[in-house]
């Protein structure tokens, strides 16, 4: 009967082997880099899939967060930064409840990756007000009772306020067009139209007093 083969395994031998493996990995990586460099294609480094630190500029302030690349801006605002004014309803870009401004343009926070919002200027509903002083559109929404359940309201306000930024004297059709993506299941549209047209009028009268908060303070109301 033949002897069973001897198992030879020492800690030293294991480390030596591991060292070779590690070294060859380094060499392979270096070769890959060299190949890329030769092709002129060595370039940007991928981040993730695990969480990475990023900085977002929101309402004029820089915020450091650590998120996975798959985190949307809406998730990041709500879950990481506790800025829950931005609502998420459909999470597919069909209802516009999550409307924020990206570089002053209304956009969907649910269809924007947080990592893709780095370097952009983000404005949320929290950034519209000056502390306790509401934006004219917000004040007009209160005055005209332009909300019922209120879930679509922040997105609705962001769309209407953006309209007034680019068109201070909108017609009814302009307001309808501006909120054509904002779904309101309660059917508050007529009051939204009235409020926005009223805000435009009020704003014209007090334009010097109200400027958009790009700023220094953060409104802490939920």
């Amino acid at each position, binding site marked *: 009967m033949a002897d069973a083969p001897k198992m030879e395994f020492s800690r030293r031998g294991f480390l030596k082997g591991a060292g070779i493996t590690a070294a060859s990995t380094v060499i392979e990586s270096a070769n890959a880099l060299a190949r*890329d460099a030769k*092709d*002129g*294609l*060595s*370039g*940007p*480094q*991928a*981040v*993730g*899939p*695990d969480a990475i630190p990023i900085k977002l500029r929101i309402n004029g302030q820089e915020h450091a967060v650590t998120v*996975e*690349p*798959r985190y*949307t801006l809406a998730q990041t605002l709500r879950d990481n930064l506790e800025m829950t004014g931005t609502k998420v309803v459909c*999470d*597919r*870009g*069909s209802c*516009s409840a999550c*409307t924020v401004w990206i570089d002053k*343009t*209304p*956009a*969907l926070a649910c*269809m*924007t*990756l947080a*990592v*893709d919002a780095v370097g952009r200027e983000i404005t949320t509903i929290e950034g519209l007000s000056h502390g306790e002083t509401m934006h004219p559109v917000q004040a007009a929404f209160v005055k005209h009772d332009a909300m019922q359940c209120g879930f679509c309201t922040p997105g609705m306000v962001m*769309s209407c306020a953006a309209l007034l930024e680019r068109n201070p004297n909108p017609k009814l059709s302009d307001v309808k*067009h*501006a909120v*054509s*993506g*904002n*779904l309101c299941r309660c059917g508050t549209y007529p009051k939204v139209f009235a409020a926005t047209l009223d805000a435009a009028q009020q704003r014209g009268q007090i334009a010097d007093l109200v400027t958009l908060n790009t700023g220094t303070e953060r409104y802490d109301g939920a």
Partner: protein
Amino acid sequence: MNKFSFVDCKTVDEALGQLNNGATVKAGGIDLLDLMKEGIVAPPKLVNIRNVDSLRGITVSKDGLHLGPLVTLSEIAAHPDIQRTYSGLSDAAGHAATPQVRNMATVGGNIMQRPRCWYFRSTDFDCRKKGTSDVCHALTGENQYHAVINNSTCAMVHPSSTAVPLLGMNATVELTSKRGKRTVAMSDFYVPPEKSLINETVVQPGELITGIFVPAPEPGTRSAYQKYGEKESFDWPIADAGIVLVMDGNRCRKAAVVMGVAAPTPIRSAAAEAVLTGKTIDEATARAAAKAAMQGATPLSQNGYKTQLFQTAIYRTVLLAAGQMQRDPSAIG
């Protein structure tokens, strides 16, 4: 959504260098994130081209219109030269989805959208299109929004609204890969399911759309696009028509009649174009062209109404293009 790594590129070369091992191009991200959230695709890496400056910009010259693939639908809709000279294109871009989506969605991404079919877009169903079964559920199931032409293999429809006028305007798409550039006509861009269920377009792995070019229209050219759907906003069309007419006074010298969601890919109707060519455009010729476009349609159990809706869309859009009708208030968007 699956976990993925993300790489932000600043140049076309950087992006091409990253397009390997299943990496997927991300521009505006609207359709891609939708597909990822639904679990239909799960790319290990997203190559972000949104910050590639050379892929932006609208240039209008005497030769035609050049669109960087990152031009947003809002930018196309608001551009005065496009509104004036390529009005069918601004109509289509301006009536897609919602203002917020149009601010984010790019023209390159718009023509690269995956098909609309609720069986394809649901992980609950295996299907022929997904390659997970030999069945097309739409053929026997719920098919009210599905194709009425070329629908025997897979009855999906392509949702791109800008592809409709781009096809009618003889646009070309520039594709760039590590091997170089090639130009593809819009008429060859989409691959119908009877040719391939895997490839929806001719874009190959490792290729990137780097430009869309629309040749300058001949003198006397007029174009229009209208879509009809269930909701006034956000909705995809149930029927849409893109019409390009080269007019000699009231007489139509050349015509392009394009339908978006009639078939699995945007298609031109040679029969409708033959009816219009050489004729004076009036209600009778518009109706005859609309009827010709639906000759040979093969509606499914629930979408026979689409053949009527397409006739309405074509009839009204021919008259709109010819300047004989205002934009239809019942058209959506």
